[in-house]
């Protein structure tokens, strides 16, 4: 139990003292005014901070497990790496707060205001964010698995590479949000609004998107396999490279689709052809731009391979001393069994490595738009970035021995 009392704390706070590493477990600090206080690494487990005023306070690495923070003023608070598992932050004001890498597993953030908050790499597994305001919030790489985001306001939020598997997004507003490379497998987003959202390479396998608004959404290279899109609105969606195998398209609303590589509207699929286009060609890719697959067990040596714009290539074989040229917007996936030994990749493609890549001569990769190395992948070599810079994503557990070079 805490050694300090509420009065002690208020007194010390009045004297400008710090509470760094202080034991404040289970204390009743409801409605206390502690703006700008220093609570770094403080232990506030189970504390009652209902309606407390903590604006601008520093709670970096603090333990607030199962703390009660309902209606607290937490604007601009630094919760970096704070432990907030099971905390109750209902109706709390967290505008502009820093929650990067914070653990909010099972926390209750119903109706909380998190506009502009930073939640990069935050753990929000099974958290309740029903009706929360996350407008313009940064949630890149956040873990939102089984999270409840019903009626949440996520307009303009950045959810790139976030994990929203099995999350509930019913009637959430994600208009203009960024969901590139996000994982929404098995999520329930019925009635959600994704209008104009950037969802490049988003995984929507088995996602419920009934009555969802996906108009104008950028779904290029997205996976929509077995997704439920009944009565969804896909008007003007960019679907180049998207895969819609087994998707339920009953009652789909769609005036036209954008099938251009760049998503610039240069290739339109009219209303009458939309269903046929989607149902007959489950992989929504233009003619002549099919997927190339190199199966497991094959070995390719000293070869020079060239793939055009928008091509999709998957390698599960072993390539030795090969040179691969990728067209703009092409996709190269090195599967789990795939090995690219002493190889070189050139071109503005997107490279995903689940297997291994080892360069022949430096730089091993030149001009790639994006490089993703998953937890099982390994990359040994230098990367020469193009003028617009390469986008990198490295999952924890991946093996890297790399050098990133600026464009010449």
């Amino acid at each position, binding site marked *: 139990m805490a050694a300090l009392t509420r009065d002690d704390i208020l007194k010390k706070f009045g004297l400008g003292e710090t509470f760094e590493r202080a034991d404040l477990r*289970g204390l009743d600090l409801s409605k206390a005014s502690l703006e700008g206080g220093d609570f770094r690494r403080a232990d506030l*487990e*189970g504390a*009652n901070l*209902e309606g407390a005023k903590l604006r601008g306070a520093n709670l970096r690495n603090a333990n607030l*497990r*199962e*703390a*009660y923070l*309902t209606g607290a003023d937490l604007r601009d608070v630094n919760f970096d790496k704070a432990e907030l598992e*099971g905390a*109750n932050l209902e109706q709390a004001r967290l505008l502009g707060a820093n929650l990067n890498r914070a653990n909010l597993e*099972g926390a209750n953030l*119903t*109706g909380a205001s998190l506009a502009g908050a930073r939640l990069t790499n935050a753990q929000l*597994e*099974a958290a*309740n964010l*029903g*009706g929360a305001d996350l407008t313009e919030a940064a949630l890149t790489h956040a873990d939102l698995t*089984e999270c*409840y985001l*019903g*009626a949440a306001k996520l307009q303009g939020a950045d959810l790139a590479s976030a994990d929203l598997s099995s999350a*509930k997004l*019913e*009637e959430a507003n994600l208009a203009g949000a960024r969901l590139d490379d996000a994982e929404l497998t098995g999520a329930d987003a019925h009635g959600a609004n994704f209008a104009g959202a950037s969802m490049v390479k988003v995984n929507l396998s088995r996602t419920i998107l009934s009555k969802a608004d996906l108009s104008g959404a950028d779904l290029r290279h997205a996976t929509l396999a077995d997704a439920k899109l009944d009565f969804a609105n896909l008007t003007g969606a960019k679907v180049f490279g998207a895969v819609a195998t087994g998707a339920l398209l009953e009652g789909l609303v769609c005036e036209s689709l954008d099938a251009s590589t760049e998503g610039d509207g240069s290739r339109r699929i009219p209303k009458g052809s939309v269903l046929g286009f989607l149902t007959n060609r489950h992989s929504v890719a233009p003619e002549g731009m099919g997927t190339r697959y190199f199966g497991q067990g094959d070995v390719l040596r000293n070869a020079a391979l060239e793939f055009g714009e928008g091509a999709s290539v998957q390698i599960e074989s072993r390539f030795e001393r090969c040179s691969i040229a990728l067209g703009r917007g092409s996709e190269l996936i090195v599967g789990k069994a795939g090995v690219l030994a002493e190889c070189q990749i050139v071109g503005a493609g997107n490279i995903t490595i689940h297997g291994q890549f080892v360069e022949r001569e430096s730089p091993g990769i030149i001009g790639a738009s994006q490089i993703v190395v998953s937890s099982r992948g390994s990359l040994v070599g230098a990367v020469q970035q193009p003028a617009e810079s390469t986008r990198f994503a490295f999952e924890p557990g991946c093996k890297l021995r790399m050098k990133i070079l600026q464009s010449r």
Partner: protein
Amino acid sequence: MSFFTRLFRRGEGGGAEGEVIVKKCVKCGAEWESAAQFCGECGAPIKEDPEELVPEVAAAPVPPTPPAPAPLPRQRSSVGTPAATPPPPPERPGRATGGSRRKVAGSTTAPSRGAPPPPPARAAPPKPPPPVPAPPPDIPAGSSRPRLPSGALSELFSAAESELFSSAETPEGSPPVPRVEPAQTSGQSTNGSQAGAAPKGSATVGTPNIPGSHEPLTLVEPLSERPPKDAKAGKRAARDGKPSAEDAAYKQLLDDVDAGFDSIVRTDEPAVPDAPRVSDPGDMKQVQALFQQIATSYARPVRDFMIEIKWGEPPKEWIGICAPAVSSLRRSAEQMELPELCGALDGFLAALERAQSSNERAITDQTKDLLVAGYGDLVRVMPDVFALEAEQRRREPIIVQSLLLQVPDVHKVALDKIYAAGLTTLEMFFLARAADIADATGLPPATAKSIVEKFQSYRRDIESAKPDKGRAAERGRLATLVGQLKRQHEDYERIASSWSADATAKKKRLRQLRTETVLQVNVLLARLGEVDRQGRIEKMSYDNKIRELERYLEEEKRKDASLS
């Protein structure tokens, strides 16, 4: 010549056990007790007899009783007399008090009958008496008995006094006798100094302190059941600079009425046999207010029952719990002279009897209407005690929301839709069909069906739960849930430290189970009327939640034990 010899020589105070300070009349030489200021023989002032004063006698802590109705100036009081002399004792007209009561203070024996009447005490020129209101009808005008605020209070006092005097003759060593706990005079507590100082088994005789003008009540209670009151309260009050007598009197009155109710509940006998008959409108108001205050607590099972009736078809066993409470209230209402309430209670009792005599196992719609109508009268007469709305408004939202959140797929969005459609009461959910809910809210039919099933299951729970006065069934269920929550939490904490994929899955499951259990606990607490406790518990960590719930169950168990 010893003091006792002198006393016996005069033939007064036979059997006296106390020791007194002696004064001598300056004119005729007659000796009188210390408190006497004027000679009973010749009327001349008397003075102390210093050679007769034995040190230990002088130091005897027995406060003398002033002989005259009006206290004399302090400087004339004798050695050993407390500075603040208690006011004169009341004298019941027709009571043979005997002269010894005026001459011997501190005697614990009854006065000898047939003793000569005391000499008339000639008092110093009396101060003009304070304005005295007309005495109550049972006290003759001009009586030395101090004025009482109302007839009710004087009657109560009489009852207490008669109790006292009958018990005063009980021989020492007999079972505990009733004792008069004197009420306080304004600004002075005598509980500690006199009543408290009386030896156990004896009675403080003859000088029950006179209640102040606002003093409503004296208590008659067996000594064994009530420890002597200490003087701390008075000291505290004096220290705080507040008049304690009024507060203490009010407290006493509250205790008294409460004790009356306790006895109603325990013995099913009329609680306050000598309950006051209140005629003064002001007192009537006060008494009614007190009655309401205490009746609110005693009517709780009745309110619970009526809430259950509103929410479903509770079993008939409820009647067995309510009827005694209603009967007790009826008896007290009669004693408090609340005829309108008596009528309403009679009506409700009749409805209860009819409900009891029906062949149905549960309270059916017909009997429900009867009971609701009967209860309506009670609410009309005494809304503060019987009104259900406030209580229901506190309990119902918690129950509804906790039940709804136990339904899979019901979260914020679904809740908002349900409430927006006006589905907010248990009654609505009990009556609603899945299709109705789906139509009204726009929720998927499967979810609507789950909601209906949940509420119907709860309804069955209510109807099948065997009620009892202490709500033991519900508390038993709560204890089970607390045990379950404890296990789930312990498992969760154990698994939380592990990082394996299996542990992660288990952790998720346990987190969900824990949440569901808390929702079930919320429902039970609300049903038990523990809404505030539920609110407090909600703000606690799981460890503290469990601890608090265990403490609550323990408290309730203790209460049960003390009642039984």
